[in-house]
């Protein structure tokens, strides 16, 4: 059976069910909406967090920047590309896929580090959620809502995660070389910040850039570049 058949069959849904579902919400059913409950809990937690700020700072400091006991919000970062080789002078289109949860993410930052290559524009790139609440089941990255700032940053509005983001890479090395470009993604929200890095290994030879493979990269958190 196809999704088309199932969808057309759903069109025959009886009106009473449609009406019932349209009018149903937890408040009407006498239940306290979970979102509101979570807001109250979050507000209480925020007060507690503020009160224990010094302790939290000390704990964080002792862990050398590692933020522990947080749920995994940023699940993965992956990179794909179309061809094996490109001219060294051309912009190489790659696609970055970011898989993430939806716990109040309000900002996403993408930046790269490499001796031989870099993101062709907008490095670092910032993406902001309007309401700080992504839903991984809906995703829309609004193009072309980019804003280019005077300092070179590019910001865009993201409504939901996960999403795919087309990026451009370009070679900056003058001579033949090989190495990797590390593309990092950092998600931030109230009280948390998580990041992941994907490394793309390349080789520049005779005016051609060869893309070899990617792997997840675990940066040294004490390294200021990350």
């Amino acid at each position, binding site marked *: *059976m*196809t*999704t*088309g*058949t*199932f*969808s*057309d*069959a*759903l*069109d*025959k*849904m*009886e*009106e*009473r*069910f*449609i*009406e*019932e*579902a*349209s*009018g*149903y*919400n*937890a*408040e009407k*059913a006498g*239940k*306290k*909406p*979970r*979102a509101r409950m979570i807001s109250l809990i979050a507000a209480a937690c925020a007060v507690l967090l503020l009160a224990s700020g010094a302790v939290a700072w000390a704990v964080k400091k002792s862990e050398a920047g590692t933020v522990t006991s947080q749920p995994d919000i940023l699940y993965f970062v992956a990179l794909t590309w179309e061809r094996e080789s490109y001219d060294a002078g051309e912009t190489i289109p790659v696609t970055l896929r970011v898989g993430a949860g*939806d716990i109040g993410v309000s900002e996403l930052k993408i930046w790269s580090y490499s001796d031989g290559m870099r993101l062709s524009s907008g490095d670092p790139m910032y993406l902001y959620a309007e309401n700080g609440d992504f*839903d*991984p*089941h*809906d*995703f*829309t990255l*609004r193009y072309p809502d980019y804003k280019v700032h005077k300092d070179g940053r590019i910001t865009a509005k993201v409504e939901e995660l996960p999403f795919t983001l087309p990026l451009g890479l370009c070679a900056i090395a003058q001579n033949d070389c090989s190495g990797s470009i590390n593309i990092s993604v950092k998600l931030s929200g109230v009280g948390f910040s998580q990041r992941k890095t994907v490394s793309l290994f390349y080789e520049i030879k005779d005016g051609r850039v060869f893309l070899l493979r990617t792997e997840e990269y675990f940066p040294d958190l004490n390294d200021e570049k990350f």
Partner: protein
Amino acid sequence: MAPEELENSIVRLYWERDEQAIALTEKHYGGFVFSICRNILRERRDAEECCSTTYLKMWNSIPPERPNSFTAFIARAARMTAIDRLRERTRQKRGPGRLESLDDLSEFLTDDLSVADEVEARELGALINSFVSSLEKRERVLFVKRYYFNTPVKTICRELGVPRSTAYSMISSIKERLKKLLEKEGYLQ
């Protein structure tokens, strides 16, 4: 004004060919229609266009129609308009033509949103209606919200006041029962 009164007065305005009917529809049902289209299309501009098409469909179909439930009537029109747009987008290769919620059922549905045979759709529709009717109220609401309206799970959790884990376990249980029924009735091999 009570919802029934509002519905009746809007339908009456359509029957009187008073353009105020569209303005009132937009005012009172605009958000509802937009959310249906938006949930299916996942793209604001297309959803906005579908809203306008839906209002035009209301104008062209009432009269002769005199819906018992204007809410259900406009919801159905909005859904069909959005799905038509989704199919058009697929034909023009302007994006994936898939209903996100039906990914839940990918275990037994193949990904092809083409228009189905009307007779088959009607028969299957009757079976789905009897299945929905057999569900407990909260499951029924979840089923309609998820598969009819293509509502994201997160939104359903908020509207039903349940944690996400509960919603997924309800979806899983509904899926199993639906699969068994479809197998029993010969829709699945």
